[in-house]
């Protein structure tokens, strides 16, 4: 993973992002307003948090399809803890985060201890966790959260939307971890050559479990933000978020086969996708149209990436 190769993909992506922003600005004068940009930032945060950790997951050569279900399950449980069990809201949220993390740990254990391929393991937990969300909520939604809670999803802190602070901090921490710490180095090693990593004495299994746990935690935090933003909890929340996250990560230059990728790339991918969504909606295209585009972008990206990096693939 040399700097040269890195720069190539990220630079192209950065140029694309600039191009997109430019086109969108020309297309609609509503685009480059602080209001709109902040709003887009809000919308991007939930997927963003999940995508940041998904970068780690995919670099190790794995995948986590259950993030959407963990999000939904956590959202429901926060509502249940608060409304049905009468716990104070901060405690309910904290407990929800714990549950989300544990759900991720369960994924990690199934994958490392029982050697189930990440694809099927998280496909199974996708169903299980979503099922728990549906079963516990019985399709009833919870409303009426206290005012202060909405600051998280709809309010501002020092003039910037609250969740963007969280997102920003998460991005910086993740980038630092991945690029500058032994944890990050281990992550890349696992994705490039897990056997050699093990033979070098790196703690492969512990790192994997930690990564999947973090994925669960990210989904849980996203849940709290989501609930706060839309002022309600429903069991179908987060459906499809795994697709958005994976697309952003892959678009950002992370190889689906593992061993390569950066947080910066994922962030650029996120921005590009959000810009696309925003542009299309400003042009009057319904949100379903953008969904089609995301899917097409995903397929095209991995196809091109595969063609250019044939020699890299294991």
């Amino acid at each position: 993973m040399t700097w040269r190769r890195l720069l190539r993909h990220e630079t192209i992506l950065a140029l694309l992002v600039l191009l997109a922003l430019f086109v969108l600005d020309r297309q609609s004068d509503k685009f480059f307003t602080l209001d709109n940009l902040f709003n887009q930032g809000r919308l991007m945060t939930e997927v963003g948090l999940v995508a940041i950790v998904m970068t780690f997951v995919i670099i190790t050569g794995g995948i986590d399809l259950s993030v959407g279900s963990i999000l939904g399950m956590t959202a429901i449980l926060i509502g249940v803890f608060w409304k049905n069990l009468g716990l104070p809201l901060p405690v309910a949220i904290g407990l929800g985060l714990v549950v989300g993390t544990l759900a991720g740990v369960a994924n990690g254990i199934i994958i490392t201890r029982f050697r189930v391929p990440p694809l099927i393991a998280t496909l199974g937990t996708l169903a299980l966790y979503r099922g728990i969300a549906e079963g516990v909520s019985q399709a009833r939604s919870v409303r009426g959260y206290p005012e202060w809670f909405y600051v998280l999803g709809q309010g501002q802190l020092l003039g910037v939307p609250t969740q963007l602070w969280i997102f920003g901090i998460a991005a910086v921490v993740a980038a630092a971890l991945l690029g500058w710490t032994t944890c990050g180095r281990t992550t890349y090693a696992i994705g490039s050559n897990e056997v050699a990593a093990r033979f070098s004495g790196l703690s492969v299994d512990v790192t994997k479990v930690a990564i999947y746990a973090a994925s669960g935690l990210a989904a849980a935090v996203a849940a709290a933000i989501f609930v706060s933003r839309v002022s309600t909890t429903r069991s179908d929340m987060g459906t499809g978020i795994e697709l958005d996250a994976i697309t952003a990560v892959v678009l950002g230059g992370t190889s689906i086969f593992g061993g390569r990728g950066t947080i910066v790339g994922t962030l650029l991918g996120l921005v590009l996708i959000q810009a696309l969504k925003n542009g299309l909606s400003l042009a009057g295209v319904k949100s379903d149209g953008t969904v089609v585009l995301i899917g097409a972008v995903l397929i095209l990206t991995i196809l091109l990436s595969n063609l250019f990096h044939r020699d890299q693939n294991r």
Partner: protein
Amino acid sequence: MTESTEFRAHRSGPARCVSAYGQEIVIACALVALFVVVSAINPRFLGANNVNTIVSGNAYIAVAAIGMSMIIITGHIDVSVGALIGVLATISGTLAVSGYPVWVAWTLPILIGAAINGVVGALVAYGRLPSIVVTLGMLSILRGGLVFVTGGAWINNLPPSFQLAQARLLGVPVPIWFMLVLTIAAFLWMRNTAFGRSLYAIGGNAEAARAAGIPVERRIVQVFMIHGAFAGIATMLFATQLKIIQSTVPPNLELTIITASVIGGVSILGGTGTVIGSTLAAVLFAAIGSAMIFVNVSAYWLRAVIGLLILVTVLVDMARRNREFRGSQR
């Protein structure tokens, strides 16, 4: 060593059958057990009307699972099949209300399904892209595309002759015929033709399959096309159930179909399993869903049950493989 031309089998026919089809037998037993237990609690469960609803109404899942099983046996997966069925249903309905003969509305989606999945298969086989990612992308293209084009509108005014699923042949609902005939035909085909066996080979050890002369890439495209065709047939049974066609499909239809295959004995690692298992499993799910209502357990727990079943099945499968692997190392 033995001069006798008579062939000695190590185990008798029935014994061999049991060991080869263990999972299928387990499911069949579970199905029987379910019916016995639930009707003991609530006798109306066994009523002819209910059984008919369970089996006939969900036959399309079993049919779609036939194609899905083939895909999984070759070692791949398709998470877009639910959306595909939704799209094909709308196409089917649109053809019907636009004055085309009913049989065209029924059969054209089969060809379209095969074509769309053929593209997916080509991307996977020749583009060497992981099937999970390609079909994940296809899922949103189809799902989003459907709503985008239809605007969310439902299709009404379907001609009565369109409703194939409500028809009966010799007193048995048509969907059940389809399910039974197709399952048996597919089973025999996968068991007794070189093409069918090559799917097991590719899923079991793609390199050895290549060495044995099997055209791996071509087969993968072909099996994806067959799977698309089965999705089209499933659409025939699905779209013709009601007098309207919605612009969406039952949520997570693809998950149900995949689960039917996995629990039916088709290992997610490829190379093993039969369509009889997946059909039985599909019926089992439908039965579980209905049973939960009759036993007054909220149907909202169904998905959790499904998830648990997947995990348990996969863990058992992995344990078996690890044990076999270690045993063969001695």
